[in-house]
């Protein structure tokens, strides 16, 4: 099932030329070889993570990583925390609920405060588009974007790319259909950039109000009819639809959404043979996806995505801290 993607180092240059950014703020702004490099590194961490005995590496030993989450998250926070700890870093989590923001401190002041604690990397999630970039301007250490508003969620796109790469052997030429609330989805935005950079054909589909027409200028095909969008596609990415959007504002009801955009066996048959089904989670079973599909490990890569998430975040934390750690060729 898993295809070999090692020995792809012809896809990126050697040393620090393979990734030349201080921060990881988004996929937009990255070069294809930089993405390939992160994926290549992440793939190596998958092997470590799967080893039955010790899963520990000491390369980030002594470094402090702050996970500053201004918006609720369970899986991304956990994934970043495990990634940091597996690499031997000291990881501390800051939740919005405990933060000074509730006491009226501005975001910049919070950034300056975090900076004064001399973290070696800060992972940030925030509810406003651009907030992570704003903080990155005010701190000295590398910043990783764990999702900002409806802008970007780069590690999600990278873990999705790694998942496709391992299952399909390649991303170039694959037809990927992203279905759901594209308008409010940072996952969709990062995935569109990432997949296009790596040469995939990208389709977006969903209720008209949730699929902006301007997306066409990104070189993606826009559909409102799910069946047409699925025709012959190799990968189906279902997005989570937030319940609050299904009470009449954008969609009349969950059952109407399921009627038009729920992924069932019948619709899956329209896609190419062996089409891969993905979902960033958490899923609304019976709304956007049927359990029979989500739980079929031959078809669904949903748990694998979570697994790749840890590996991708290990790779990202490793790469952005290399300068600090004076790694040869990167200092």
């Amino acid at each position, binding site marked *: 099932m898993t295809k070999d993607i090692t020995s792809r180092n012809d896809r990126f240059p050697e040393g620090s030329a393979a990734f030349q950014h201080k921060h990881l703020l988004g996929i*937009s702004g990255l070069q294809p070889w930089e993405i390939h490099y992160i994926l290549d590194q992440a793939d190596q961490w998958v092997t470590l993570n799967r080893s039955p005995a010790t899963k520990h590496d000491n390369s980030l030993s002594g470094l402090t990583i702050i996970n500053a989450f201004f918006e609720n998250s369970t899986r991304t926070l956990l994934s970043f925390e495990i990634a940091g700890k597996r690499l031997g870093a000291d990881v501390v989590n800051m939740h919005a609920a405990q933060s000074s923001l509730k006491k009226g401190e*501005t*975001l*910049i002041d919070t950034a300056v405060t975090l900076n004064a604690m001399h973290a070696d990397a800060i992972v940030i999630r*925030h509810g*406003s*588009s*651009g*907030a992570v*970039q*704003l903080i990155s301007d005010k701190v000295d250490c590398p910043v990783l974007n764990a999702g*900002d*508003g*409806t*802008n*970007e969620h780069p590690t999600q796109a990278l873990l999705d790319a790694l998942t496709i790469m391992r299952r399909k052997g390649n991303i170039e030429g694959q037809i990927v259909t992203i279905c759901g609330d594209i308008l409010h989805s*940072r996952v969709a*935005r990062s995935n569109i950039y990432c997949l296009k950079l790596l040469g995939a054909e990208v389709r977006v589909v969903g209720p008209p109000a949730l699929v*902006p027409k*301007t*997306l066409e*200028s*990104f070189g993606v095909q826009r559909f409102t009819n799910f069946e047409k969008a699925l025709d012959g596609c190799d990968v189906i990415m279902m997005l989570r639809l937030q319940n609050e959007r299904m009470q009449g504002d954008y969609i009349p009801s969950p059952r109407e959404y399921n009627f038009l955009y729920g992924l069932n066996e019948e619709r899956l048959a329209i896609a190419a043979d062996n089409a891969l089904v993905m979902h960033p989670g958490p899923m609304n079973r019976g709304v956007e996806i049927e359990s029979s599909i989500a739980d079929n490990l031959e078809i669904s890569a949903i748990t694998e995505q979570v697994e790749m998430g840890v590996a991708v975040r290990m790779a990202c934390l490793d790469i952005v801290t290399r300068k600090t750690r004076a790694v040869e060729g990167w200092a």
Partner: protein
Amino acid sequence: MHIQNFKTLSGDNIDSISCENGIITSIGQKIDNDAQSFDAKGLLLAPGIIDLGVFSTDKPAFKFGGITRAILMPDQKPVHDDPATIKYAASKGKPDFWVHPLAAATKNLEGTHLAEIALMKDAGAVGVATGHDNIIASETMLRVMEYCAALDMPLFVHSEDIGLTRNSVATEGETATILGLSNAPALSEVMSISSDMYLAEEADVHIHYRQVTTARGLDLIREAKARGLKVTCGITPAHLFLSETAIHGFRTFARLSPPLRSEEDRLACIAAVADGTIDVIASGHDPRAAEEKRLPFSEATPGMAGAETLLALSLNLVRDGHITIKRLFDLLAYNPAKIIGINAGSIEVDKEADLILIDTDAPWQVDDMIMPGKAANTPFDGLPVQGRVRHIMKGGKIIY
């Protein structure tokens, strides 16, 4: 007092201008050996700029920009919705700078109950405004318009259809989609303009669209003018020289209301200045402290500081050949004075002697270090520009 040795907007051969008691008394030949003469050293003489629709009485900024009168929006704390606040605002800048306040159309600008417009007119209000927002209920809007018409006051409106723009911070388009910012179609402007236009025609009121920023909006204004309606409109340099791409990098200084538009709309705005559809260029001066702008884009307050850069940026329209310098001062002074009905805005005998002397070529760079206003939140930050005011004469006295 006589001013001598200057260039004129029309290039006429005039050697001297004399003023007495703050009024221009004669325009004509050179007066020799007069102790009261002021040597303008070849600078360009123009009427003081009348800035139609600002949000702050930021005197140092206005002085820097050659603005001698500003028409103040009612969006203040507290809202200018009663005679006392209007009276205070009208007296605030005197004697060297005049503020002409606009009355809030509705109480606390909430769009529901009529404010005391007649009492505010008596206290010095020169017009009525709906503020940053517009009035949603058409019934209320029509009543406001009929009231303004009866009192012979112009109504200043903001043109965004709130039903479409609610919660949005940018114009629908590629940039907003890339950045993941909530956005609304530019169509919201034309919808708002058209519904207000029908009501204004019904009420027979002079309606001034403070900022028209889209091609389709300008088409409506053009048609209305052709039909002879009492319609005028304005714009700020931001919408003439910047398009939506200026918000890239989440630059909150470029978060404006209405938001920056597409490049096609920007070019339509330039064309509308050139063909006379646009009557006024104003600064929309709205200085915002750092804590209101150093925020994630959608949390930042919209608005820009514009008084300091109004003249220099507008001069680009002359340099690029879109309009003559004379027409520029129609947009900056003559038309604004005409809209609010004050005896200023042009250099003629019996007009108030609000004059500025400009070095049109003087180079400078837009920079918060040299901008003296309350805040330097301008999307033009860092831009090299040309044109500085060297002297200001207000009420016949050299004040700068």
